């Protein structure tokens, strides 16, 4: 069994961009897309400064976080370790892109040439329309590797079957080979030299290993406090800092917002029905209304995916993808609602509630599985989304209560439940923001969260809590106050989801757990009076 990977030597790379451009040639990537990217990194503060060049790209992880999230099976891992893309299967949902902690993936939706819309002769001949609207990333030049066997050549040894970046590198900073072969150059380097894996703590076991030391000349050292200070990690010009992901925009947020509240509403309606606080007829109407809201959310997602006509492929990976599972919940939900109208049996109502609960849970897991976005991947995320969904459902039901009853029973229940969930959600949010740093959320995303906190607490927690309490205290205003409280809860829940998905959505960024000791002042390599 093979395990292909790379060694990148920080003491050799000069940041010349030859690998980047050679990759662009070899893989015909469009303007702005760089599967092999080299960052110009500066650390420290004058007069103690270091600069280095960091090769990035798909790490072909042994435990790739992009593979299980793929709802279609377009992204897979081969036995030789290569993480592959099937462009014909991909729907362009970008789950993989937000799941990757190495910012390796891109999606280009429209064909452009380097000279605006007119393609040059070469661009016409090298255009790949199959790659439009779908996820792209470094393939380790898979076509080359796959010809090795037939030609009797060895990847990493023979240039024709070795990735373009490695064989074009003018410093041999990038080496490719088989880590499973103890005699390969990469294995020897990994064995003989000290190296690190980026974001090793995330557990992806990336297959690019970075060398950082030269015996007798350049020792390695860990980062200084200033390099990982909030100031540096907030500097948008710092290439290590992850910027906001743009794969999932307001359209994706709309699914979490509308789908979440709709699922919550269905659950609350089911609960109210179980307590016989609403009639079956009302229950069905509420389910229908919720389904419509959810459908709008789903339609927004449909608008966002790169390959709309392939949307049904989303159902293909229930064994690992929470997005597939979410869609199956939808697939169960809508027929159940339809049937509940023609065949009004309680079992369908239970089915609807179950599907809604599943939908809500899947949403939580989708966001949590997005390993590339620190603010999303926190362990509490599914619980936060579920509880918010329920709080929103309570809120929506409170809004609708007047339609179905003039009595105070239902509103009272809603007040109590709403207040409890508002309190619970307040605690969740407070913890989420408080533990953000510990959870690896960077200062830029933290700032977004902190900025949103007064509104989130105010709208989603304090206002409902206060209004629900007031309503309980003043039964004569109960309907009106619970409606307002519900509205606040819905708006507050929508707001935090919007903020988390489209604002505090900074990518993982890059990290340097070890760097070569070189630079000026304090950072300079140690004095030396002989090389033995």
């Amino acid at each position: 069994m093979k395990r292909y990977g790379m060694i990148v030597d920080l003491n050799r790379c000069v940041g010349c961009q030859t690998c980047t451009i050679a990759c662009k040639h070899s893989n015909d990537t469009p303007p702005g897309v760089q599967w092999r990217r080299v960052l110009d990194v500066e650390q420290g503060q004058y007069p103690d400064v270091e600069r280095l060049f960091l090769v990035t790209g798909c790490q072909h992880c042994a435990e790739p976080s992009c593979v299980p999230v793929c709802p279609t099976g377009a992204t897979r891992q081969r036995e030789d370790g290569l993480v592959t893309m099937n462009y014909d299967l991909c729907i362009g949902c970008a789950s993989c892109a937000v799941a990757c902690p190495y910012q390796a993936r891109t999606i280009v939706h429209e064909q452009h040439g380097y000279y605006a819309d007119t393609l040059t002769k070469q661009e016409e001949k090298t255009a790949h329309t199959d790659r439009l609207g779908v996820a792209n990333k470094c393939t380790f030049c898979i076509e080359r590797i796959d010809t090795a066997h037939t030609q009797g050549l060895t990847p990493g040894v023979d240039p024709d079957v070795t990735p373009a970046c490695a064989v074009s590198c003018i410093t041999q900073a990038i080496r490719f080979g088989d880590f499973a072969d103890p005699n390969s150059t990469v294995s020897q380097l990994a064995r003989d030299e000290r190296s690190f894996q980026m974001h090793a703590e995330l557990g992806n076991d990336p297959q690019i290993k970075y060398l950082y030391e030269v015996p007798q000349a350049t020792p390695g050292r860990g980062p200084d406090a200033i390099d990982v200070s909030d100031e540096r990690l907030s500097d948008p010009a710092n290439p290590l800092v992850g910027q906001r992901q743009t794969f999932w925009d307001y359209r994706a947020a709309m699914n979490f917002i509308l789908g979440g509240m709709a699922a919550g509403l269905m659950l609350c309606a089911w609960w109210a029905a179980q307590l016989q606080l609403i009639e079956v007829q009302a229950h069905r109407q509420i389910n229908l209304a919720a389904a419509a809201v959810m459908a709008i959310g789903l339609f927004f997602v449909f608008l966002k995916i790169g390959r709309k006509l392939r949307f049904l492929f989303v159902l293909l990976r229930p064994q690992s993808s929470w997005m597939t599972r979410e869609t199956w919940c939808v697939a169960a939900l809508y027929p159940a609602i339809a049937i509940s109208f023609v065949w009004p049996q309680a079992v369908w109502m239970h089915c609807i509630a179950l599907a809604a609960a599943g939908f809500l849970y899947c949403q939580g897991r989708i966001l949590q599985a997005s390993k590339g976005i620190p603010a999303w991947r926190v362990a509490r995320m599914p619980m936060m989304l579920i509880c918010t969904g329920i709080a929103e459902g309570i809120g929506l039901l409170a809004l609708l209560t007047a339609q179905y009853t003039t009595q105070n029973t239902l509103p009272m229940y809603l007040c109590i439940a709403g207040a409890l969930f508002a309190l619970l959600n307040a605690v969740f949010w407070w913890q989420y923001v408080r533990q953000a740093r510990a959870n690896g959320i960077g200062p830029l995303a933290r700032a977004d969260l902190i900025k949103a906190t007064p509104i989130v607490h105010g709208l989603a927690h304090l206002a409902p809590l206060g209004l629900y309490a007031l309503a309980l205290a003043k039964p004569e205003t109960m309907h009106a106050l619970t409606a307002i409280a519900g509205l606040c809860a819905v708006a507050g829940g929508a707001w935090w989801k919007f903020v988390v998905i489209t604002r505090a959505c900074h990518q993982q960024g890059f990290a340097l757990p070890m760097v070569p000791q070189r630079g000026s002042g304090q950072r300079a390599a140690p004095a030396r009076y002989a090389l033995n």
Partner: protein
Amino acid sequence: MVPLYCNQCVCGPDLFKVEVRDGVALRMTPNHDLEGIHPAGGRVCVKAYGLVQKTYNPNRLTQPLKRTNPKKGKEHDPGFVPISWDEALDLVAEKLNAIRAKGLRDEEGYPRVAATFGGGGTPTRYMGTFPAFLSAWGVLDQGYGSGQGAKCFHSEHLYGEFWHRAFTVVVDSLNCDYVINFGSNHEASGGVSGVWRQADARSRGLKRVQVEPHLSVTGALSGEWVPIKPKTDAAFLYGLIHRILLERDWQAVCDVRFLKEDTNSPYLVGPHGYFMRDTVSGKPLIWDTAAQCAKPYDASISDAALTGSYCVSGEEHGPDGERWQHTEIQAQPSFERLREHMRKYTPEWAAAECDVPVETIRRVADEFVAHARVGATIEIDGQTLPHRPVGVMLGKGVNNGWGGYQAMWGRTLLASLVGALEVPGGTMGTKVRLNRPADNRLKSATHGEDGFMHYPFNSTLKADWQSKPHIRNAYKMLVPLAANSPWSAALGPAHLPWLFQHKAPAPWPRQTLPEMWICYRTNPAISSWNAPEVAKRIAEFPFMLAFGYTLDESNWMADVILPEASDLESWQLSRIGGTGSAEQFWHHQGWALRQPAVAPAGDCKDMSDIATELAKRTGLLREYNEAINRGSAAMALRGKDYDYALDPDIAHDSKSIWNAVAKAASHEVSAGADVKDLDWFSEHGFMIRPFSQLEWYLYPRMKSTGLRFELPYQERIQRHGAQLERRLHEVGIQWWDPQLKEYEALPEYLRFPDIWEHYATELGRDPAEFPLWALTARSMQYAWGANVGLPLIREVAQNVAGHDGVIINRATAKRLGIADGDPIVLESASGTTRGRATLREGIRPDTVLLIGQFDHWATPVAKDFGVASLNSLTDLAVSLTDATGSGADIMRVSVKKAPR
């Protein structure tokens, strides 16, 4: 896959292959056939990968163009209209024929035709047989600079060749352990071979100390970055030398044998500062401490004295044949004089001058001598040579302009102190451009005066001095060291014609305009000092013939633009291997082919065919063909034992010409055993033979020829200076006096930064207005490639800091209220430029950095960059020109936030 070479930069040629399908070039790859042969494994740099896009750039000019607007200037649309090749060539030929009828020189004696090519000789690797046409034409003014020559590694070119046949100087990184690098951005400018070898050296343990005001790409890859005040590098070097000679036990740390036997250290110096010479033979004297007497340098000497003062008789040879006879006077070895000379340049003094901690200077000096391994040897191809694994590199901004001589001298001296000159591991040269033979630097080391190598100085003796400019930059007149090779015109003060055209100093002969100016693969209106001013001068030329790729700021002023077939569309053979710029150190040498991988775009024509057409239409076909036969285009087609010469009386197409060259080249490579034609080269791409590593080093040749390095004492330089001063004063020229002061036997350090700080007053401005230093640095992605119109290059270049903005120290920017990405305006006493701010820590607070050369206003794509350029801030000025005739890429500036 079609094999070709890339010689866009001076570090080539390097080889690659291009994938062609249905006549369209699609992709490029390295040429892996050269793995283990080419010093960088057959790889090419980022720039080469732009060539495919360059071929299909929709902004390419693909038809000859004629100007219709007689008014020239940035503000005047040239009104170019397409014309046929016949019309275009007739138009140019008619002009040339009219000029020829009047005479090749005008009434003032200047050539009527001038030509400017891009830097480093790289355009000749693309212009096919055009040099043969120029040779057939005859007198030509190639002294209008465009950024090459005077703006290049200028002092290094001149003094490097003078001292050790090193037109460019590098370290033998394969065998080197310790390098002090003063601002050479080698990792961006060293070509693939340089970058590859340095990476290998680093992995082996080479330590590099990078001394420069900003943390360059090269600084990034160095063990230590020492942020030095701009233009004080010579002071740092002097501090190191002081440390070695006066604080350390110099006899313990220096290579005393080398100093005694291989340099002029023991030559006795008389009271007038010239060598004490034997009155009979005129040979410089050395004090033999064993024999207790002075002997001619080439006599049998048991133990040459390096220090002390000795009572000797003899004579000094001053300027213009003056003789001073001395009887029993005190004379000192030049080494003794050197130690006295260096006494005042203490590390403390240097530290204050350079704004660097004194302990850094002392430590670097100590590390240098510790790594030098004086006494060690190494075996190279069966021969035992000294092994001195220490070197010193100088950057372009360090060794051009004022201070360049001192830095060059300090660097070369530092190498000689430990015997690390032209030996494995040490500081060494790569090629010659001023000496002959051009293709073998070792053979150019022949006997000259006083035990040193011959050097083809331009005479400063009254009888032979060129008293009037023969071309507009007057290099023969002003710069003895520029010699008189085909390269000398470009290595003279090539920026001065632009200045003198506007405002010449007095007295100076009236500078006429060339009646035709030819511009090929260069854009002086962008790449010159004070580029906006140069654009105005170009607009004054009555007729400009440009060979154009796209519109640019220079050909905007053209009368005719001829579109050449591009790098992937035309024929040419070039030498590869041996030793060459940066670190082209091969174990092979031979020839490589550039060929039409694809058909020329539109009506673009192979340069060789253009040259043939022009030769035909100017009645110079025979002379042109004979020039090709003599080797003007590549190599002689007729030799002792071979003859592939072209019939001189008929026109040959490009392919036939290069077919003949292919045969001659393969004949040379194989010593006649394996002659190949162009088709063979088309398939295989290159042909090589072994080249011994021993031929990398000059030292064995110096020993076998019985030559000494002309260091540390610069008697000849001093004499030429004295003579030149007399000559210039004789014709009333006083304005070159500051430059004449540079001709010192032991160069003094001047406060070089002051020259630029005070320059503002010359223009009536207050120096305090311009509190910051502005510098530039090499962009590997853009340099030389004429590729600013390629968005692909732009895309990848932007991954390297500084390609989108002016690099400013973060604290300085904060003080000025400037945030990252803010629009800024930079002003110097002579110009302004606009751009954006890029905030970094790796730069001194008193310095800003403008990478590359931009500020385009006509070149498609590039004109929309909004990137500032140092060339818009620097100035053309005699006071900023040193004695070798170069200025420097440095200026005092102010930086302000501009309104968005």
